[in-house]
Structure formats: C-alpha cells, structure tokens
C-alpha cells in the first residue's frame, strides 16, 4: 500500500493562544514494500508526521493518500477509519505501557478482534505473532504484567503484528532495551519486512539502524522534510547532519576523525564496520604514497 503526503500542514490547537505549527509543506511518498527511516532531533515534527500515517491526526492543510483513501483537511468527521488503522500498524514508544488485558493471549487478540476477526482466528494470529517476536507459547496464559520489560515490549509488538498490517510504523521501538534485545527486535522487523513485504517506517535516533536497515532516509527539520535520500547520500554530507544537531553513524564519525588527523580522504562513507575496516586498511596500505 502506497502512502503519499501532499503539501501537508498540521497546526496544534488552532484558534487558541497555544496554536503551534508542527508540520508544513510536507511532501513524500512511501512506496509499497520499502523501508524508510525518519530522522530528526526532538521537536522536528517526526511524531506529528507519523500520526498522519494512520489518521490519528488529520492535516490542517493538504492531503494524505493512504492506499485508496484520501484524507483531506476538512471539518467533517472522517468515517470508517478502522480499515486504515488495521492496514497501518503503529508501534509507539514504550508500547508495553499500553498492555492492559488479563492474559498475553487476550492482549494480542484485542487488535484483530476489534477489526472483526473471529476469536478462533485471532488466537491463531496471536500464536503466529508470538512466535514471530521470539516468545514461547507458554506465556499466552500469563498476565502481561508478570513478564520482564523486554518480554512485555515483545508482547506489545506482537499485538500490532497480529493485525497483519501492510505498513508498520515504528517509533523508537528499541528504546530502553539492552544491546542484544535491540538487535533481535530490529532484525525481527527487518525479517518481517523482507518475508511479508511490509512497508516499514522507522522513526529513530540511531543512525546505525538507519544506515543498516533503511532503503531511504528522510530528515525532518523544523516541521518539514529537509532532505530525502539513500543512506550513502545522506551520510556523505556528515557536516550537514551535525549542523542540524543530528549524529552520524559511529563508522562515519570515525572516518571524519581520521580524515582530520591523518590528512587522508575517504572516497565514500563507510556504513558498516566491515566497510570501515576495509577502507582503513586500504588507506593504511596506500601509506604516504598519496
């Protein structure tokens, strides 16, 4: 499913003293089956943007086209948003805060049943989703509140996956997890993206994750799209990112330090440790014979 934003503007609290322009002139298309990372510092409009992707917010100007549906700025209340919300699943920050049911199974089934899936089918979806997030079937009957923080996070994610969305929007899905948990969850989302062709939109502060997983990166700055490009393009201008108050991947930061101290130049940004090792090795072997 394709999602297109055309000249989207969003103002909070219109016609009040607290009116605040959060998004303006946002134009972008998320093609089906792609993996997009959205980066930008706190307050750049990332969260407001992602709430437009399943109509939790409606633009105050412009339009959002989600599959067949067009959401316009208008006073009239939009009807039948359920189908959009089923197709576009959002994993919010700290999703485990939203767990509420008595058992893990009921919690995961809540979403699909809410969208009209019969109970037996929902239970089957719950089992599949649980496996997908790397948890054992035994915990289905447990209370989600007896689980560890990492397990709770996975259960909450399973609840979104069980709705079988076409598009997954992930808002800092690994914040607060330990390094292994972080990698497992990110790899799991990537696998889902590959296996089921789910379009994935990752909002993140981790430039490593953006570089490793995304096909495209969108930089949000002051409420609008500052730049869009492939990771190699985005990270080939590290100075620009640093000026925006953003980080660059560890590998790129290290290249910059070496360039400055050693007086050499790297032809391209290294986006993985393996690339960086190869590039340094080559630079060292070239030695001073530049």
């Amino acid at each position, binding site marked *: 499913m394709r999602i297109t934003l055309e000249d989207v503007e969003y103002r909070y609290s219109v016609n009040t003293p607290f009116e605040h322009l959060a998004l303006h002139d946002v134009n972008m298309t998320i093609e089906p089956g792609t993996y997009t990372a959205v980066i930008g*510092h*706190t*307050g750049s409009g990332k969260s407001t943007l992602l709430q437009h992707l399943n109509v939790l917010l409606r633009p105050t100007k412009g339009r959002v086209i989600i599959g067949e549906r067009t959401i316009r700025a208008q006073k009239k209340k939009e009807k039948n948003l359920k189908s959009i919300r089923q197709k576009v699943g959002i994993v919010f920050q*700290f999703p485990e805060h939203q767990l509420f049911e008595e058992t893990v199974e009921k919690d995961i089934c809540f979403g699909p049943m809410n969208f009209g899936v019969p109970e037996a089918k929902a239970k089957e979806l719950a089992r599949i989703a649980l496996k997908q997030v790397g948890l054992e079937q035994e915990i289905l009957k447990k209370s989600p509140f007896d689980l*560890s*923080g*990492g397990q709770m996070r996975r259960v909450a994610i399973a609840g979104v996956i069980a709705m079988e969305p076409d598009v997954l929007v992930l808002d800092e899905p690994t*914040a*607060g*997890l*330990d*390094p*292994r*948990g972080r990698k497992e969850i990110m790899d799991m989302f990537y696998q889902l993206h590959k296996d089921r062709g789910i379009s994935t939109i990752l909002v993140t*502060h981790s430039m490593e994750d953006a570089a490793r997983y995304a096909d495209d990166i969108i930089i949000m700055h002051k409420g609008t799209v500052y730049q869009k490009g492939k990771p190699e393009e985005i990270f080939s201008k590290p100075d620009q990112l640093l000026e925006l*108050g953003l*980080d660059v991947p*560890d590998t790129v*930061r*290290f290249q910059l*330090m*070496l360039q400055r*101290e*050693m007086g*050499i130049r790297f032809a391209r940004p290294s986006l993985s*440790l*393996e690339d*960086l*090792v190869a590039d*340094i*090795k080559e*630079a*060292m*072997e070239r*030695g*001073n014979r530049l």
Partner: protein
Amino acid sequence: MGKKLVSLDHVVFNYEGSDSHAINDVSFDIYEGEWLAIVGHNGSGKSTLAKLLNGLHFASSGVITINGSELTQATVWEARRKIGMVFQNPDNQFVGTTVEDDVAFGLENNGIQQDIMAERVKRALMKVKMDAFLDQEPHHLSGGQKQRVAIAGVLALQPDIIILDEATSMLDPRGREEVLETVRELKEENVLTVVSITHDLEEAAKADRIIVMNKGQVHREGSPIEIFRLEDELIELGLDIPFSVKLSKALQKTGLDLKNDHLTEEELVKELCELHSKM
C-alpha cells in the same frame, strides 16, 4: 581508592511469589568519589540492586552497610538522605508545578528552613545549569532538562552518592550527553560518588570501575579496560563492547599492528596516525 561508603555483604533478594533469586549472594563495595557503572542485560538484576541500595526493597538475607550503619527499616530514612536516585522516566519523577518547587520538594520533606532552602535550590539548579528555568513549568522542558532538574533535586539534599537508574535511556542523544556531562562535571568537582546503572557501554567505558551483573549475581568486576577485554563473553551476556574496541579488534584481525586496547576513539585515531606515518 577512597574510603568505603557502601558495602554489600552476601545480599539475597526474592520478589514476592517468585522462587528464583532476583539478587543472589551479591557482595561488593562502593568507594567515595568513584564512578561505578553497573551493567547487565534486561532482567539481570541491576535495577533491583538499585532499589535495595536506597531501601525501596529490603534484602531477604545479607547485609547492606551505608556509611558504617546497617540499612534496615529503622535507618532507611537516614540512608535515603545519603543516597539520591534518578530514575529512567523523566515524566514520572516531576512532582512540582515549577522547576523551583520540584527541586524544593525533597528539602521541604526534610523540614529545611525556608531561607536555607531557597539558597540550596538555587545552588543546585546552577550546578546543573538550569537556574534560568526556575519558574518554568515542567512540560516546557525537554527530557534532558527534566532529568537535570531531577539531579538538582537530588543534589539539593546533599547526598553522598547519586544512583542513576538508566537515567538516560529514554532521552535522545543530545539529552543523554547533556545529562552525562552534568554528572561528569559534578563528579570532577568532587561533589559526588556516582553509581550508574546502564546499558550504554560507551558511557560505562568512561567509568572508573564496572560491575557486570548476570542472573542476579556479580558476573565480573574490573576497570573498563579489563571488562571490555572480555569481548565475546560480554556479547554472550546480551551486552556489547564500545565501538572503538570493536573497531580496534577488527583492524588487528586484518593484520594491522595495533598494540593497545582502545577505550576511546581518540586513542585509536592517534595510534592509527602513528602507524600511518611509519608506513
């Protein structure tokens, strides 16, 4: 090493209704003026440890001694004056309606005189560079600023030790750096002993000492260099090693003749430069 401020002696703790030990026979000391990082994967027991240290939980067996006196139900209030905690979620620990009120909260609870209180609040906020925000409401602050106010609230009580319980894990990179920089400065002024409970290995690399927790036990203890030398063992425990260490090892595997363990990127760059100029 400074004098012993806190010591744990064969401490065991079980959560109610659980038959396994969340903390299983843990003994170690905390010394005055040090920065101690406690690392471990989710569920390794490190946060439980923090809660035991300031009496939010009490040991099932074993003894915790703080400044010479045993931590019990009777001494817990005294202990909490000596140990300040900053928790993970900046939004869960703001109690005042303004920054000033929030920092004053702990002092009011301790019945500190009005004029002394005002002075201490101001000084604490200056230390974390938030004095310009005195009359601001919390929702106007960023996560990093909120955590700095939380630190000021702790500082105002003049504790001996500050425990950061994953205090930066919900912040963006900028907020994280703000908070760590603040704590680092405070520590350098010799105001504080810092115990930082964290997943952030880059942060742990800057500590004086690291304790690695696993399955409720002290798995390893040592300087950052000693700990990060463990490499694969740390990764098996669900942890990671700092980028500079990882890169240095990978370069050595390709046959580059690097000698040192590199805990910072600066050190690694320096050695690469030296090597480069010899080639």
